[in-house]
């Protein structure tokens, strides 16, 4: 195949084309159209990543408001503040919003934004699929919240056990909107997981062998594979539930051969890996921050990677510990007790390695490190109460009480939200080009930390005193009054901390100190790009000679990629040897249109099964138009993807 002579194909970056001239050409090639059209058609992983993060944090605030309403209702016994029906919708929406609309999406959003930068490439692997996944996710979230505001919100709990969520005991369309929201968020999460796997395996910087991949990227790889293997379980379960409710299939009808436990098995086979999907990226954040602020690679890198992979594998083997009270054979439970306990080992090892890294260096305690220390103090308590509920005799008393509520808030808020808030503070300069304020950051940490422990440490005792979960009120005289009031006060203290954090973000957007490319002196590749990164990330594709590239004397780069058309380099999986110059898709409106068509199909299929037949046609058309080349055939020219 003769090389093309066309000027667009021959213009390549390198020593002769560098600096501002190269930046002008590349910005024009990789940039978006201006205004709303550009905003709707962009496939830039940074723009989609930012809007993913902002949307997920908005859902966190909405979910947090619901939590405050619940705490107000539970502040006093027999309070008539809200009715039982409204409370059931609120606690279901709190759980579903936090788990499906905030936690998983925000961790994947950070992956979408950071992984391409940290592996040293110019775009995420399937950028149009990335845009499609964001639109689908936000439409799913809007659908659920509009249903909730129309008093058609789900009132069956975030894990919607049948037969309560079944056709007979959940009249109307409430449970259907919940189940369809699962389909939306699950398709979006799977799409992002596929992109992250492909980006990490095929687009790493030349020289970034498997033992030079940053620990956060390892975390995202393990998370992506867990999403790929666990999400189909909840898809199947929610599709079976939808068909039970719409066309009368008998999956969960005990009298016709179905079983209520089929739902629990399918859901928790996904449910437990999901909570690890939420908290493993948190471990990745902590590793990245500890490495930077200790100015030393994390101690025992291979042990850390092995621990991540072990947690990922073990997570699939212990879902039955959610079902200890359902009367399954006791010997089977013993296996799941052992598996649930075993997961404390890799977590414990990781905790040791971080503390050892701090001890073996002179850590600088900037605000992100406050969150890391807060994470260690809080998450370890969550892990230890997890060991308690892993034991059958203890779990038979502790299950479905406020002790378990305290446990999973310690592991999820302590294990994932604390590192997340630290990560926002840590990568805010890279994303926006400005530093967040130090003093307000510390104030926010103190308020959130104090409020959190005041709220949830108390709940351990509320649970031990016998208060079950998900009760919209409770009788006086059981010793729960002061404890519940303390939790309510703590919840408002924590909420004030979150608002201070939000204020810090909004203020720093305009008035934050200008941050250079590498304000923290970090070692990973994203800090080699400008702050905020140019549309093309790197003028020349960086190469890597160690696991801490920016702490070496110089950064080797590779030239020779096209500048007039979007192109990046694919490397081999294990050794990351440059292999292929691959064109990268250009911006297009079709992912948005395909997402709208898919939304129509999903919402219509709540009301009629024929939606799957007729609704699929517009989706097919949109997908074909998305894939179809937009310009005439390029005989003998270098390939592009329009």
């Amino acid at each position: 195949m003769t090389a093309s002579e066309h000027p667009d194909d021959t213009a390549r970056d390198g020593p002769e084309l560098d600096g501002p001239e190269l930046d002008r050409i590349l910005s024009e090639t990789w940039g978006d159209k201006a205004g709303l059209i550009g905003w709707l058609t962009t496939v830039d992983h940074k723009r989609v990543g930012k809007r993913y993060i902002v949307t997920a944090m908005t859902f966190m605030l909405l979910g947090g408001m619901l939590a405050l309403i619940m705490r107000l209702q539970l502040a006093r016994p027999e309070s008539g503040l809200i009715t039982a029906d409204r409370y059931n919708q609120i606690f279901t929406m709190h759980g579903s919003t936090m788990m499906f609309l905030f936690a998983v999406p925000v961790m994947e959003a950070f992956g979408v934004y950071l992984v391409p930068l940290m592996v040293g490439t110019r775009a995420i692997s399937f950028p149009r699929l990335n845009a499609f996944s964001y639109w689908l996710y936000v439409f799913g979230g809007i659908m659920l919240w509009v249903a909730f505001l129309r008093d058609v919100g789900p009132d069956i709990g975030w894990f919607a056990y049948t037969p309560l969520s079944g056709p007979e005991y959940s009249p109307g369309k409430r449970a259907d909107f919940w189940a369809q929201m699962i389909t939306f968020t699950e398709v979006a999460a799977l799409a992002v997981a596929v992109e992250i796997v492909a980006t990490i395996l095929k687009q790493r910087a030349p020289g970034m062998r498997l033992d030079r991949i940053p620990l956060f990227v390892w975390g995202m790889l393990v998370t992506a594979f867990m999403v790929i293997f666990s999400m189909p379980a909840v898809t199947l379960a929610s599709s079976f539930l939808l068909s039970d409710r719409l066309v009368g299939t008998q999956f969960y009808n005990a009298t016709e051969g179905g079983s209520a436990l089929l739902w629990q098995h399918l859901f928790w086979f996904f449910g437990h890996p999901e909570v690890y999907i939420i908290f493993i990226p948190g471990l990745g954040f902590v590793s990245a921050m500890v490495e930077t602020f200790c100015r030393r690679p994390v101690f025992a890198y291979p042990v850390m990677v092995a621990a991540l992979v072990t947690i990922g594998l073990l997570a699939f083997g212990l879902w039955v510990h959610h079902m200890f009270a359902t009367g399954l054979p006791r010997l089977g439970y013993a296996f799941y007790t052992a598996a649930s306990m075993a997961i404390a080992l890799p977590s414990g090892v990781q905790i040791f390695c971080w503390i050892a890294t701090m001890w073996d260096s002179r850590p600088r305690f900037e605000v992100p490190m406050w969150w890391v220390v807060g994470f260690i103090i809080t998450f370890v308590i969550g892990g230890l109460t997890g060991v308690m509920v892993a034991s059958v005799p203890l779990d038979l008393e502790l299950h479905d009480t406020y002790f378990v509520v305290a446990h999973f808030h310690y592991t999820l808020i302590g294990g994932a939200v604390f590192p997340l808030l630290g990560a926002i503070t840590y990568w805010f300069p890279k994303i926006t080009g400005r530093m967040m304020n130090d003093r307000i950051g510390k104030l926010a940490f103190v308020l959130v930390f104090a409020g959190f422990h005041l709220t949830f440490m108390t709940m351990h005792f509320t649970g031990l005193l016998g208060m079950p979960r998900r009760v919209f009120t409770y009788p006086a005289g059981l010793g729960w009054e002061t404890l519940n009031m303390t939790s309510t006060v703590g919840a408002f203290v924590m909420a004030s901390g979150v608002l201070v954090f939000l204020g810090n973000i909004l203020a720093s957007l305009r008035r934050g100190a200008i941050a250079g490319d590498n304000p923290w002196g970090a070692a990973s590749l994203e800090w080699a790009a400008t702050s905020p990164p140019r549309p093309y990330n790197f003028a020349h594709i960086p190469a890597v000679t160690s696991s801490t590239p920016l702490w070496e004397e110089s950064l080797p780069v590779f030239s020779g990629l096209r500048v007039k058309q979007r192109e990046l380099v694919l490397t081999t999986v294990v050794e990351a040897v440059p292999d292929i110059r691959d064109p990268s898709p250009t911006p297009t409106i079709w992912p948005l249109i395909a997402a709208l068509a898919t939304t129509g199909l999903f919402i219509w299929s709540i009301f009629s099964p024929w939606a799957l037949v007729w609704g699929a046609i517009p989706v097919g058309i949109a997908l074909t138009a998305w894939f179809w080349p937009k310009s005439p055939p390029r005989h003998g020219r270098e390939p592009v993807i329009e």
Partner: protein
Amino acid sequence: MSIRQTFAGDLKVLPTHGFGVRSLTWWGVIAYMLIEGGGFALAGGSYFYLMSQETVWPPASLPPALLPGALFTLIILLSEIPNSLLKKAAEAQQRDRVLWLIVLLDLIGLVLLVIRGFEFAHINVRWSDNAYGSILWALLLLHTIHILTDWAESLVLTVLMFTGHGQEPRRFVDVSEDALYWRFVWITWLPIFALLYLVPRLV
């Protein structure tokens, strides 16, 4: 304090497409196979779980008629011959061999969809009769969606190959990966065939 950069190599000479593990979309297809394979495995798991709930299997109905199912399986297995030829031709970028093979596969796909209609007609149970009927319809419907989506994708690719775009090497990569996905479609059919047609007869 941005770090000093030194030029360490030139990527100009690299090719712009590759087959198999060298291609990015190959990894995307593999990932979706993992997702859908996981979904099939869990649906199979649900089948056995529901079977364990019943004393007699199939409860209160005939198992699906063997003829359409066996015919479908025979043809889909035979379709691997043109499918492998198509994959080799695509990787050798022999455009005219690819053109008639891909049209042949589209026709085979159409025949299979017709036979699948007969399978649905002779499944001998309604999805709302009992959990056995529900899981049978679910398995058959899930697999049919996979055949339909792959067939539609092949149709779009066939039309594209006939246009000028058909000469570009990346299109041959697409055809090879489409053939790979068809291989996944009939591989996942084998266990489903066993669950639908053999297990109710043997157990």
